[in-house]
């Protein structure tokens, strides 16, 4: 059983796998791309690229601080480095290096954080990136993307390489349902409306898009019409889509696999407060560190479920 199944979505690849395949296949199109790894390339899936382009791949060992600054140096000499590690280690260990060697000099470094959120499961909270979106969003000029499935991950990977400037791409470990089997338009900073509705809008990203679709189906059965926006870009946030949703549906639910501070919820709240302040409810993994366990069990225990979104939608439409 997986969230999204009830909506008829087929289980596809993990976003990290889609990224790894995309990066490898884009290697010829983007000859300046190089990878810089902290010895987890077989987990982050930069490994396929490194095998095809060994002279453009650097494994600098378990030293994330150095890894990020080396990438800054490569970028300042004309390369497009893709730096990949677990989201938690990349953003938390190397935060100052991202600030000083990437963001402040505004260099064209592509940060990729895999194993984001609690759905990594058994390895436990030390490996779970639950602060990464907040930390990445805090840097002036940083683009922050959280794709929801394999299709948008491939598009986000290419968009990231096309974009000139620092970006953060957040990836997950487990296989996730395919949302865009028929394709989709993908543009940095532009939300995708996955489903239209009038009564409430669920704004989600990452694995929570599929979960939101299950919730929308349940609510529809109760006569509540739900719009679902895939807010794959947290920064720059799509102010226009948020304003439109707030005006047209008069209530918002934000769902993300992240802690409550500084992530998608905060970005949506700031945006809506400037344009069309409406009641907003928040679904996230809570102000806590989770625990080891099976991914599905963790999502249920820590409230990242269709029913959590249903409850949030019910309460927010009554405020």
């Amino acid at each position, binding site marked *: 059983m997986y969230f999204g199944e009830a909506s008829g979505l087929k289980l596809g690849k993990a976003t990290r796998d889609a990224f790894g395949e995309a990066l490898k296949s884009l290697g010829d199109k983007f000859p300046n791309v190089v990878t810089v790894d902290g010895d987890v390339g077989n987990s982050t899936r930069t490994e396929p690229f490194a095998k095809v382009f060994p002279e453009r791949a650097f494994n600098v060992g378990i030293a994330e*601080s*150095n890894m990020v*600054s080396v990438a*800054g*140096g490569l970028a300042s000499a004309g*390369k497009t480095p893709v730096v990949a590690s677990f989201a938690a280690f990349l953003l938390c260990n190397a935060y100052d290096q991202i600030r*000083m*060697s990437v963001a402040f000099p*505004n260099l064209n470094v592509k940060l990729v954080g895999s194993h984001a959120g609690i759905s990594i499961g058994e390895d436990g909270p030390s490996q779970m990136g639950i602060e990464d979106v907040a930390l990445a969003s805090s840097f002036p000029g940083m683009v922050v993307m959280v794709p929801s499935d394999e299709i948008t991950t491939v598009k986000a990977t290419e968009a990231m390489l096309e974009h000139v400037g620092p970006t953060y791409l957040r990836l997950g470990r487990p296989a996730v349902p395919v949302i865009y089997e028929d394709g989709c338009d993908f543009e940095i900073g532009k939300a995708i409306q996955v489903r239209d509705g009038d009564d409430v809008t669920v704004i989600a990203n990452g694995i929570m898009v599929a979960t939101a679709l299950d919730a929308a189906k349940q609510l529809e059965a109760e006569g509540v019409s739900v719009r679902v926006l895939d807010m794959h870009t947290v920064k720059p946030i799509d102010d226009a889509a948020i304003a439109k949703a707030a005006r047209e549906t008069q209530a918002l639910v934000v769902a993300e696999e992240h802690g409550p501070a500084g992530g998608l919820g905060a970005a949506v709240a700031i945006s809506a407060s400037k344009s069309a302040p409406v009641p907003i409810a928040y679904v996230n993994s809570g102000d806590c560190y989770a625990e080891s366990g099976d991914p599905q069990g963790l999502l249920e225990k820590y409230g990242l479920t269709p029913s959590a979104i249903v409850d949030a939608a019910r309460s927010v439409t009554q405020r």
Partner: protein
Amino acid sequence: MSTDTTRPSIDDLQAKAKVIRQHIVRMTTEAGSGHPSSSLSATEVVTALYFGGYMQYDANRPDWNARDRFIMSKGHACPVLYAAMAEAGYFPTEDLMTLRKLGSPLEGHPNLRRLDGIEASTGSLGQGLSIGIGQALACRIDRLESKVFVMIGDGEMGEGQVWEAIATAAKYQLGSLTAIIDQNGFQQTGATGDVLDLTPFQPKIESFGWHVQTINGNDMGEVVAALDAAAAVTDRPTAIVSKTQKGFGILPVLEEAGDLNFHGKPLPADMCEKALELLS
């Protein structure tokens, strides 16, 4: 402009170092803040790099891709870098007097987005050597023979990232990379040996597989000889442990003030005057 390899004499370089020291003292006193003593210790090395024929650069084309690069990892010592850059023609020497003032690209710590010719934005210690490795790797991919020089403070060696970088540069056998440790013996609150003693540097760095020399970094002859020796090593990275004195060139003035560290503060007007007399 320095794209030829003609070597000026030691006397010429010493004369240039004196001019740069005058700039350092004047600009920080004018700014009312800054790190003159940390800049003065590094003056011989920076002067030799920019004016001794050891770096190929073109001040009119700061983005020339085949240039050699200098990174001031101890970013607070940027007055010596700004002074050298002005003398090299990156901008007029009058601009040195805008140091740290609103609107000036000569910020309190180097900012590559504001000033052409700055190779890395520094000021949070410990990152310059890693950045230099990235630049050296990029040049290697592009089959450029560019060299990368990184100046690190001895206090800065306390940052673990520097040691991560030392190991990484050895892994990639970066013969184009030279690190200069400006061992002036002081950091913000006192003697480096008292705060966190990481000496001796030479055997430690050698043990990673680097070529290392230890010199008197305020002796221009030794500096030039060390840079020549470093240039001859092409199969591995090189380090120059440059033993210096913080505030070298105006030491009697600092002695009189009873503060041989004199960290992070400009000379007051009267001391500035005395210092400039010593440097005239």
